[in-house]
């Protein structure tokens, strides 16, 4: 067994900087005089982007076996189903 048996570390600091910059961008966009819908869509898009970066690099999902990646995202469709269907209860 060798001492270092893992892949070289990804550039964690670069991810950190990207997260910081995106957060700043979000703060900026939130107070722009655009329509509510535009802001909401952009902000959620940015949040998801940040979340995906955390999952891929900090939780190193990118370097895990395919099976584990599937397992990690498996609950997400359920969340979507619940929210999507119940929302239609009140807006239709």
């Amino acid at each position, binding site marked *: *067994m060798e*001492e*270092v048996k*893992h892949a070289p*570390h990804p550039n*964690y*600091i670069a*991810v*950190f900087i990207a*997260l*910081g910059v995106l*957060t700043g961008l*979000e*703060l900026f*966009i*939130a*107070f722009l005089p655009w329509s509510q819908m535009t*802001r*909401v869509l952009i*902000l*959620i898009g*940015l*949040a*998801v982007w*940040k*979340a995906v970066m*955390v*999952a891929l*690099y*900090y*939780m190193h999902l990118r370097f*895990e*076996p395919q*099976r*584990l990646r599937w*397992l*990690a995202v*498996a*609950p*997400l469709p*359920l*969340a979507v189903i*619940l*929210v999507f269907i*119940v*929302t239609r*209860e*009140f*807006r239709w």
Partner: protein
Amino acid sequence: MAHAGALHDEDVMLPPPGREPGAGVYNEKLGMWVFLGSEIMFFTALIGTYIILRVAHPTAWKAPGEVLAVPITAINTFLLICSSVTMVKAFAAVQDGNLSGLRKWLIATVLIGSTFVGVQVYEYRHLIEKGFVPSEGLYGSTFYTMTGFHGFHVTIGVICLIFVTWRAFQGRYSAKDYRGVEVIGLYWHFVDLVWIILFTIVYLI
């Protein structure tokens, strides 16, 4: 955390030896990911409720910054991102066998994480003094429930991190066995990830 009947010279960072191929990772990591699936559903209940109620009653919410203090929370968000990078640095350090680096980065993570909780408590007190309480309509109900349970998760995370740090000082982790560090790291980053979503949808929308 050795399994009963496990061999002594096994590589603990690999799946249990002599078994059918499973997820391809060791048990504790697989277990944490499965557990995080459960956590996703828990936050789905809370965040989903928020989305559904907000779609049903859009007028019950105030514009960003009107009630909630965005600047202080923005700083807090930045703190949590910092704690994630220190956590991942601790993980990288132990992978490289750099044990003093591990201890240093873990302590940093504990400190930043505790600060996050402290700032949140301060924010709550401030809001309650202003009269924004959990019984303040749908806005207060969803705000306190979501951020409160996130804060609860951060607190649990800090307690676990203190435990891991203590074990790091005992020399329980090495480049050959850093399961505890990796697993608590996964939990910590997940909590960070949830905050990324919460910060956007609670404070900025």
